[in-house]
């Protein structure tokens, strides 16, 4: 039971990342290859703000001169809110120069951001303790079951907010921009403004996910926030269904469940060291198969009828 809880908690956190990427790339055509970076901003912000002094004492005792983590000891709620806001803000700063340009530039810039964040995490010891990482991050209520409910709550909020935005007139502008910028501009919509909002909101939610991760794992290191995380999210969003939130959730469940733990259930075929490689192979094959035969994913985007729209708006 504990084991299932662990998988579901991790899946839940990845779901949030997936919904945010879906907002960026699925609904607004903004390729974000720096997911790990915004995830890290959220995780570190929350960790730095909430970790107790006890941790700093340990570090100082071990020879570390002392730094910011451990001096603030804020409650979890402050941690996650700050993580969300700061991640969104960093997204905003990057968006200013880059969103006027073609999407390709955003893809490259976002990779740069993730690398820069990684670099800061590794080297700004006074802020992040560097490669040893931050430990003893408090889990709220110190209860795994309650924490899972918290993750579900955040996931539900993120799902609802994005769903609401996409169904609104604002969502229409996003989808129109995604398809044809010239036409959308000719109808009086500001392309940069609508993209900036999608970008910032998505980055903010990635920060929230990062905060949840830090409090779940209770210890974080720069080495965790690597491009592999970013690409895993891309894979399950594509496989699950770009532009369909339910599809994204299914994708997360399947891919992350499989990647994280699922292969334990596979028989070893006499060669136990094959199994970890096997899971990567399976995921790779799944990605290729889906892109080739079903690019819309397991659950494709569906049109809404005007009658339904007027009932639910």
């Amino acid at each position, binding site marked *: 039971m504990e084991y299932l809880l662990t998988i579901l908690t991790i899946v839940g956190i990845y779901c949030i990342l997936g919904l945010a990427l879906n907002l960026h790339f699925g609904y607004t055509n903004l390729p974000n290859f720096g997911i790990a970076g915004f995830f890290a901003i959220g995780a570190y912000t929350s960790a730095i703000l909430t970790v107790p002094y006890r941790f700093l004492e340990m570090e100082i005792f071990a020879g570390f001169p002392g730094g910011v983590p451990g001096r603030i000891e804020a409650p979890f709620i402050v941690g996650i809110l700050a993580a969300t806001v700061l991640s969104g803000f960093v997204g905003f700063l990057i968006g200013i120069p880059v969103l006027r340009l073609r999407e390709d530039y955003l893809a490259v810039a976002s990779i740069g951001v993730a690398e820069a964040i990684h670099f800061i995490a590794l080297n700004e010891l006074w802020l992040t303790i560097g490669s040893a990482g931050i430990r003893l991050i408090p889990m709220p209520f110190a209860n795994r079951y309650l924490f899972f409910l918290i993750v579900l709550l955040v996931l539900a909020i993120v799902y609802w907010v994005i769903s609401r*935005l996409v169904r609104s*007139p604002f969502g229409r502008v996003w989808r129109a921009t995604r398809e044809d910028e*010239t036409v*959308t501009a*000719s109808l009086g919509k500001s392309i940069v403004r609508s993209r900036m909002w999608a970008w910032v909101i998505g980055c903010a939610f990635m920060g929230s996910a990062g905060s949840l991760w830090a409090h779940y794992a209770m210890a974080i290191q720069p080495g965790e926030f690597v491009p592999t995380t970013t690409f895993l999210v891309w894979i399950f969003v594509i496989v699950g269904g770009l532009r369909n939130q339910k599809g994204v959730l299914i994708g997360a469940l399947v891919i992350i469940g499989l990647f994280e733990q699922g292969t334990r259930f596979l028989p070893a075929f006499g060669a136990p060291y094959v199994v970890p490689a096997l899971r990567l192979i399976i995921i790779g094959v799944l990605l290729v198969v889906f892109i080739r035969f079903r690019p819309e994913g397991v659950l494709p985007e569906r049109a809404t009828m*005007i009658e339904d*729209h007027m009932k639910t708006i």
Partner: protein
Amino acid sequence: MASIFEAKEVYKYFGGIKAVDGFSMDVGEKQITGLIGPNGAGKTTFFNVAAGIYSPDRGEISFKGDRIGGLRPDQICQKGLTRTFQIARGLGEMTVWENVMLAPKRQTGESPFGAFSFRQVRKQEKEHWERAAGLLQEMGLYGQRNEYARNLSAGERKMLEISRAIMTDPEILLLDEPTAGATVDETKKIMAEIGRLRDERGYTFLVVEHKMEVIMNICNPIYVMHNGQNLADGSPREVQTNEQVREVYLGG
């Protein structure tokens, strides 16, 4: 008649190509002005300059007294000038109703905060849909309101393009070949709609067209453009009987 849109000696070059080479025109309020000329004369380029896709290299374009040369397309549309495209650019991945509901300006729901003012958004969506539904019915598109725009025929897509432009409630509408690809029936409908909008709502029109029956029947005055420059202008009869125009364009 007060002039609502003016182009003064507009020039637009692309490298060595003089697409618009000193073109001027005046569009009077509530008039349906025509712009004709052979293919390649520079009409669409002129439209693109007027709508903000390009900036004029020289010359001035003003709308309601304000200079609009150099503004972005969305800014120009917000001021009240809407244009349609020669090849109908329907947003194919969205449905017909989404296409027309996208168009109205200044929707509350179009900011992330506004999107959560449920009551306001619901009220506006209802109002806009009433108007849109009526418009779609007149254009014969109501039956396809839930279809993806890419599934419409070429003529239907033209009608959708025009409907969308109308939904922005503009003061002046720049139509680039509105009846290209339309059937005889659709052409009649479009012409009737243009006339109706001018009479009932006071819209001003600038229409680029190739079909003579459309131009001569509803446009007055008509400007003729050739090689990026003014060739002639005047009433339909004046233009039809103009020697140079006949030579260059009407084929004698």
